[in-house]
């Protein structure tokens, strides 16, 4: 059996600023089974996220929020929001690296 990709399972994969210094990624699953599976598989482990977003693993927090069947990942932005070198003021298009993670 081929392992499914996160984008085929999740109902939401979004990114957004959490203030001008941090980027926050929310993965929301459609049901408890999918949520449990993604959490258990550890695909969104801090070390994994650090590698994917090229930051140090101690700069990443990964927190499941069971009430919303969601997993929240927060890490530093590449540049401060809207500053001279920024390329995504709202941080809204930084979610795609999560799509193809195998669960």
């Amino acid at each position, binding site marked *: 059996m081929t392992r499914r990709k996160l984008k085929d399972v999740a109902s939401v994969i979004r990114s957004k600023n959490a203030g*001008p*210094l941090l980027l926050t990624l929310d993965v929301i699953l459609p049901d408890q089974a999918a949520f449990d599976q993604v959490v258990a598989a550890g695909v969104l482990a801090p070390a994994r996220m650090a590698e994917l977003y090229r930051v140090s693993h101690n700069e990443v927090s990964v927190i499941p929020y069971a009430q919303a069947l969601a997993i929240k990942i927060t890490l530093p932005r590449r540049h401060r*929001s809207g500053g001279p070198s920024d390329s*995504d003021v709202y941080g809204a298009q930084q979610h795609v690296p999560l799509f193809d993670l195998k669960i």
Partner: protein
Amino acid sequence: MRLMACSGMIGYGFTEVGLRRGLEMGVRMIGCDAGSMDPGPYYLGTATPFVSETATRRDLGLMLRGAREFDVPMIIGSAGGGGSDAQLAWTVSLIEDLARQHGLSFKMAIIKAEPARAYLNRHVTAGRTAPLGPIEELTTDTVDRAARIVAMMGVEPLQNALNAGADVIIAGRCSDAAIYAALPLMHGHDAGLAWHLGKIIECGAQVIEPRAGQDCIIGTLNDDGFHVEPGHPDKICTKTRVAAHTLYENPSPHELKEPSGVLDSSHCTFTQVDPRTVHVTGSRFKPTEAYTVKLEGVRRAGFRSIFIAGVRDPVLTAGFADFAAACEARTRDQARSLKIDDDAYTVAFRTYGAGAVMGDREFAALNLAPTELCIIGEVIADDEATSRAVLAKARYALLHTDFDGRLCISGNLAFPFSPSDISVGEVFDFSIWHTLELDDPLEPFPVTYQEITS
């Protein structure tokens, strides 16, 4: 106690049906947040709104007439977008104008949120500021160099104005949730529920389906929790959306920092009580020993001008990065001939179609020979004239520099527009994102009252 948020943002709109229904259901106050730092530092830097005056007038006018007709307080937080003194004054002038136009009389409180530099520096020196995330410690030098700095008030300045009998409160930079938590906390409601209710309704229709524009949302506090429902009878709130909103734009799903403590939503339950209403319980508020407000400040980084151009030649799209580096060197030579030093500006060629969105975080293998590329040539210098002078040299370099295999010797770029060069405006950078510890929650937020009689 029932409260209503009219929209996620003044100027984003709401339906008159939703507003009227909420008022008729007996809401005890109506409010709206007018601010956000999401659109970036420019708006605070220039003290300008990011919504139109036409839309702001429409929303404020409907709220003001509704609030006066039903005699309930109206609270606007983070006036004008950034909540600075100039943006506050702009909002107050619109309110005065609308009051005259509609013949309304009321007592208005105006609460400022742009503390003096000397006041801030005293607190910096006393070690009462701290970084709020990955940013350097605050120094008096950073304070002095900032273009504008605001402090984000909590509930206390709003409660002070409500106690003084204000009918309309126009506040500078303000915690979004505080707009709605202020009144229930005055009446002894549970702090966890009051703050969580405020957090959920402050973004308006984010928790409403269908998502077709902004609209009013009503929160009702009761003994064990609170209800959230849309103002508009044809819209619904779902448990999924309400629960997911607790996560929104917040670094942690469990904890939301407010001046007097932390909202802990880790033990919450969300229940769908009817097709359009969600009940929330279990929110807790953990008071902190220190009372801290957030400081937001920006520094000016220069003036930006750009050109936008397409590249279609396959030899050039395949080797664009090296070509751009050569053109940057040529631009710098040309700028020196204008007596413009290298360190007086930055030049960049943002290459859309080749990793411009994610930069060094791009994980996918880029297409090495894209059919076409979009180039944004960009120069930031201290002033507009210098920025445009260097940009013109950069444009010429990109348009007319030779490359190996070049057949298109009359020009390398497809400009979509004439004029090609665009003055974008001033560029700012967030330089202050810190907490400020206060002895008195009212101190940096002076209030004035105005009797409006029409």
